């Protein structure tokens, strides 16, 4: 069986949860042939893989959002005919989008995105859209916003996915559209797994963004809603990792029959008998398994540590993760530490967590945004209590879902709340019994609901149900 795996902005360029998940999946299904179709951001990243691709990856196609290759101007520019214009119109007005015809158009013709975007037909359509909802804005700004929205879109879908037995995309957005295209062109099934909800993430980014004006932000957000809707409509099954996200998907238009949950899983037996703390070590070891990047809100963590240190003088903090990803942010964290004067804070860089987790007493995660962090599962498997912020699946992992009465695996606190984070850490720090009870609850939960075996067998079921029997001739 050949699976076309479609990823956007993660694998294999960025080290992180989703990329690792993909790597694990591909490695586990070693009998399946994978073709990786990946969408990156900058052309410079081409070929710069942060993961060694497993043997069963037979093809890699890379496309980039920011590419110079938008097609040179040809002698006779392509003229969009009346039917095609109507199809584009449905796309641009976001009314009963004729996706099938959009896919046919882009796969059958030799399209140069700039040619269409600078053509008369597109201008006419732009004016229609303009009069519909944006007739008070500056027209030329509107036109260029529209062009900048569709340029990456056209660039990406003019590189259709190859034929495969199953299309598995790891987000909605452009990846989801590509998978939908594959399904339509080759009449093969489409499995969608969403870690974070792409649409919500883009919406948050755009709201905060400086690079576009207020009234155009709405246009961008609607554009992304449109892309996800396409994926939800075309997918045969839509997988999320936890309940909150499933609810979000349904809210965004996914039919609830398609929506299922397959949570992340880890091989918890590997985390059970890890090297523990030195007997002689008196200090309270508090650890965070995070890359030093803004979304993990390291700065809040540092400030919380600072408060903890004042109450628990023999505490030691370990920030275990790569510091290379955002050197600027790392510098800022160092400066913050210096200005606070906190001692006993260690940046370990990228390490093998298994060597360190066992030595921790408390684990902390203060991210602003998360899906279902593997790091929490790892910590729970190792029997460590957690202090986590209430984002994504974190509280579901720590407190359990409705029919789970295994107990709390830690304390859930609000994001960016230095005081609450600090007091949660201090509470755990002063109560070894609580730590042990919570750690045990965590272990039991991971074993019961988040095992690697379950994860693999559920995806195997998916693949077989949708794609047919699993076998691949070398």
């Amino acid at each position, binding site marked *: 069986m050949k699976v076309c795996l479609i990823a956007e902005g993660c694998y294999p360029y960025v080290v992180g949860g989703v990329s690792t998940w993909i790597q694990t999946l591909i490695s586990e299904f070693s009998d399946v042939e994978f073709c990786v179709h990946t969408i990156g951001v900058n052309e410079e990243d081409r070929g710069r893989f942060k993961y060694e691709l497993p043997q069963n990856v037979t093809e890699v196609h890379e496309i980039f959002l920011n590419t110079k290759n938008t097609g040179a101007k040809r002698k006779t520019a392509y003229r969009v005919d009346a039917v095609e214009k109507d199809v584009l119109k449905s796309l641009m007005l976001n009314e009963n989008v004729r996706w099938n015809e959009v896919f046919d158009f882009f796969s059958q013709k030799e399209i140069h995105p700039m040619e269409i975007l600078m053509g*008369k037909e597109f*201008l006419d359509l732009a004016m229609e859209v303009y009069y519909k909802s944006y*007739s008070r804005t500056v*027209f030329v700004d509107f036109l260029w916003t529209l062009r900048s929205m569709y340029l990456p879109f056209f660039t990406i879908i003019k590189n259709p996915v190859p034929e495969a037995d199953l299309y598995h995309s790891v987000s909605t957005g452009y990846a989801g559209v590509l998978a939908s295209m594959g399904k339509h062109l080759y009449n093969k099934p489409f499995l969608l797994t969403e870690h974070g909800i792409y649409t919500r993430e883009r919406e948050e980014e755009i709201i905060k963004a400086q690079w576009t004006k207020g009234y155009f932000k709405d246009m961008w957000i609607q554009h992304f809603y449109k892309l996800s809707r396409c994926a939800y409509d075309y997918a045969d099954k839509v997988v999320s990792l936890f309940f909150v996200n499933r609810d979000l998907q349904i809210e965004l238009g996914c039919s609830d029959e398609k929506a299922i949950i397959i949570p992340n899983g880890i091989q918890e037996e590997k985390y059970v008998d890890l090297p523990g703390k030195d007997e002689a070590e008196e200090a309270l070891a508090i650890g965070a398994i995070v890359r030093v990047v803004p979304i993990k809100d390291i700065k809040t963590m540092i400030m919380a540590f600072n408060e903890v240190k004042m109450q628990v003088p023999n505490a030691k903090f370990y920030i275990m993760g790569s510091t290379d990803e955002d050197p600027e942010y790392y510098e800022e964290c160092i400066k913050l530490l210096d200005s606070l004067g906190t001692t006993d804070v260690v940046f370990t860089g990228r390490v093998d967590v298994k060597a360190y987790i066992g030595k921790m007493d408390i684990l902390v995660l203060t991210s602003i945004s998360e899906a279902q962090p593997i790091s929490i599962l790892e910590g729970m498997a190792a029997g460590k209590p957690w202090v986590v912020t209430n984002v994504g699946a974190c509280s579901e992992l720590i407190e359990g879902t409705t029919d789970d009465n295994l107990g709390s695996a830690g304390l859930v606190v609000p994001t960016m709340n230095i005081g609450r984070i600090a007091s949660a850490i201090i509470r755990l720090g002063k109560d070894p019994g609580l730590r042990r009870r919570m750690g045990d609850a965590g272990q039991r939960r991971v074993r019961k609901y988040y095992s690697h075996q379950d994860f693999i067998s559920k995806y195997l079921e998916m693949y077989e149900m949708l794609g047919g029997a699993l076998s691949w001739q070398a």
Partner: protein
Amino acid sequence: MAGIGFELKKLFRKSGFFNVFKGVLYASASTIGPIILVIIALLVIHTLMNVFNIPYIQREILSSAILYAFVFSLIIATSIGTVLSRYISDKIFNEEEADIIPSLYGSIALVTGITGILGIPFYIFARLPGLFSFGAYSLLMILAIVFVLMHYVSAIKEYRKITIAFLIGTIAGAMIGSLLFYIFKIDIIYVILYAMACCFLFTAAYMFFVIRSFFKADSKKYFEFLGYFREYKLIFISGFFYILGLYVHNFIFWFSPIGNVVADTYRCSYTYDMASFLGMLTNLSATVIFVVKVETNFHQRYQRYCYAVMGGSLDEIKIAKKDMARILNHELFFITEVQLIITLTLICAGIALLPMLGFGGLILDIYPILALGYYSVFMMYFIIVFLYYFDDQKGALYVSGIFLATTILISSVTVGMGTVFYGLGLLAGGVAAWIAGFFRLKTLLRNIDYHMFCNISEGKVSE
């Protein structure tokens, strides 16, 4: 070009006859200065030749030398001038003014080079006294330089200074002429020739001084402007086609039954050349009307349209576009009507009065056709100006190409037919190109949205 219109409008608005007169004077100086100059020069020379009883043959030689000097210097300078003006205005707009002075040196060098390549062999093989050849060649060269300089002075909008420059030149020329004739007792023919050359030398010197004091910096990029010829070769070719077309019918008739050979050197046609000179004179008012009224009115609406495109809503753009198109139509019709009346009136007056001034026979037969011919040529030229406003370089090329081709074709054909058909070449060329231009402009305006938003010339909204 629009710059002068606005200055003049200001002048005209200040009521009073004197101001109006000043306005017309300045408008004339910059747009039709060269031709006025020719008129004055020829009149003066005509008078002098009568006063000093110069033999007919010598008159012919002198007139031909002057004619050749004017025509060829104008063709060379104008062809280069179209692209040069673009270079200068771009540099001013981009605030890279240090590049302007060296381009002046460079363009003077270029123009001198071209006149040299063409003029020196011509005068070496001419059967003329060496001193005369030298004078005639100098006149050619200095006129080319004057025309190039005029482009620079126009760019800095010192139109008044152009007038002053010619005045200074005239006075200097008259003084030197008197000196040469009365003190040094030199032959009147040579006196006139060299006095003219000096006149323009002083004109050029003054204009050079004006430009030099305006632009202080010098970046030493003498030939950077040559790059513009590659980038704007369409503009260059259009300009060349136009100016060549303006005189090519004369060239053709120099070799016709009514052509003359003067001193075995110059080919001309006294009859045809005089008729075309009079025809051009008849239509000069068109240029003044265009610059003062037509272009200024249009320019305002055009600017409003550009601003709307850059920062307005679609409704605002549509309104500005309608307004601009309306004004364009209105102004074009205005000048077409008004100038036609003027031209027809002057033709009638001419037919009645010119015999009294000594013009007779064939000249009076050809003159009305050529007058109408120049009328249509000027109308065509104005359309080209508007095409340039919308950066339709291709359109301008088509129109000027049609003009040149038709003029050459029909002129050549009519040479073989009777004299009653002479002059139709120019008329046919002008009318054909005018019609072509009109439809081109109409289509352009209809598709102006596409033109503005879909041609990837970022922000080339000029002026």
